[in-house]
């Protein structure tokens, strides 16, 4: 496991009697894009929240770049970053101001140069001084992704990053993230409900159901291995009849 940038062991989250995440273990290696899939309520966002240190697990450990998220929080979180549809940057600050503030929080060197580079890379230069709340949802997504890579994280967590994008913009973003993983030696954990996207981008997928990892494997081979035509069909089976897969 020398290559693993994220190591999750026995991660569990219980809310009173409800078990949201049930002892899951997995890892993400450098240069690898891993899809975290599952129906609504399967435990994906709860898992991501624990990886980001904003939700304390009932049991288990999370290590990012070798550092425990809850024991060595600052060191671990300096090596990661994220973009999620439910965590928008403040709409009353401009694109530049938001990127600058988050760059300071993540201790980015040569920050002004880095922010200018990201504005170019994500085609945000025309909106440099525009308040984020005035941007279209696609433009906001690009800002969130620029924020997510500002510290060149070893681990990038993406919760449905292309959900509000048109197909052309979504493809461009997928290519960017894919290239970020392969060229930057970073690991990416990606949640999405778009199975075509997952097949195109992910090296490996984990299917969550009722807080447990039900299936794991190559998204191109996994459907065939379970007698399905494609990943979408497999997803629907996970959502509707998870027991049929558990019994295989």
């Amino acid at each position, binding site marked *: 496991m020398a290559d693993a940038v994220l190591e999750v062991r026995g991660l569990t*989250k219980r809310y009173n009697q409800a078990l949201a995440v049930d002892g899951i273990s997995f890892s993400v290696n450098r240069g690898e894009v891993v899809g975290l899939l599952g129906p609504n309520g399967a435990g994906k966002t709860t898992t991501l929240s624990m990886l980001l240190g904003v939700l304390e697990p009932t049991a288990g450990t999370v290590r990012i770049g070798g550092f425990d998220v809850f024991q060595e929080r*600052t060191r671990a979180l300096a090596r990661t970053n994220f973009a999620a549809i*439910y*965590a928008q940057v403040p709409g009353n600050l401009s694109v530049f101001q938001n990127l600058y503030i988050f760059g300071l929080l993540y201790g980015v060197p040569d920050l002004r140069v880095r922010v200018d580079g990201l504005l170019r890379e994500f085609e945000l230069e025309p909106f440099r001084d525009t308040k984020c709340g005035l941007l279209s949802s696609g433009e906001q997504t690009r800002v969130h992704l620029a924020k997510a890579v500002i510290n060149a994280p070893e681990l990038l967590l993406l919760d449905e990053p292309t959900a509000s994008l048109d197909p052309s913009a979504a493809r461009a973003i997928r290519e960017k993230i894919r290239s970020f993983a392969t060229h930057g030696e970073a690991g990416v954990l990606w949640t999405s409900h778009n199975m075509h996207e997952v097949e195109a981008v992910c090296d490996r997928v984990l299917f969550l159901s009722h807080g447990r990892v039900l299936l794991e494997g190559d998204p191109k081979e996994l459907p065939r291995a379970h007698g399905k035509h494609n990943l979408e069909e497999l997803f629907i089976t996970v959502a509707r009849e998870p027991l049929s897969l558990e019994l295989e």
Partner: protein
Amino acid sequence: MNATRIYAIFLRQMFLLRRNGTRFSNIFVWIILDVVMWGFITKYLNVIGNAGFNFVPVFLGALILWNFLVRVQQGIMLGFFEDIWSRNFINLFASPLTIGEYIIGLILTCIATSILGLAAMLILASAAFGFVLFQFGMLLVPFIAILFVFGLALGVFTAGIVLRLGPAAEWIAWPLGFFLQPFAGVFYPIAMLPGPLAAIAMFMPPSYVFEGMRSSLFSGAIAASSLWIGFGLAVLYLILAYLFFTGIYRHAVRKGRLVRFSAEE
């Protein structure tokens, strides 16, 4: 503690103030109205009192110092509320930022805003009503220090309450300073309060400031020990408020309230 991350929190608030006239004017409008209203009341009292007693330093001085405390409290709260209103908690606390750095960033912000507010009150009170703050001499240092530290304690405490109860608890935060005002002896000596209320005043750091202010004006003497007690109490409350806030934060992380904050569970 990382100075760059603390600066990030401070800079975020400064960006907001710089670009928004409504926010910026909030630092001045209410306190200026207060000074104008109380300035004329004190002038009127001076007239009907046949100049036998100068009400300006007593009432206007008390009002300015009390408003300073309230501004400090609200300076912390407003910075915290900005992150509630923009749903920014996850972005902040999923970064390497620590809770201590976050609070110090808010404190720096409130130093800047409360000094601006204090300066505006002093300039107006001096120009329009002949108030001279420096009549208190070096006593100003402990007066301001006690009120500042206690204002921080109130601000951090109220932020903790809102973090625990959710955005709907915002209404509790605004008037908290005014709930304490009757016990602080701002406009009258503590001796005017009935026994049990006077006992409460002994635990209120501002009461030592306002008693000291009157004592210095009327007799020219003040017991340094009472100011030390006031300062010690203010520091104690700030430590307790910090522990309260960090405890609430850890509870929120454990129970999942931070990620579902707006749901007000």
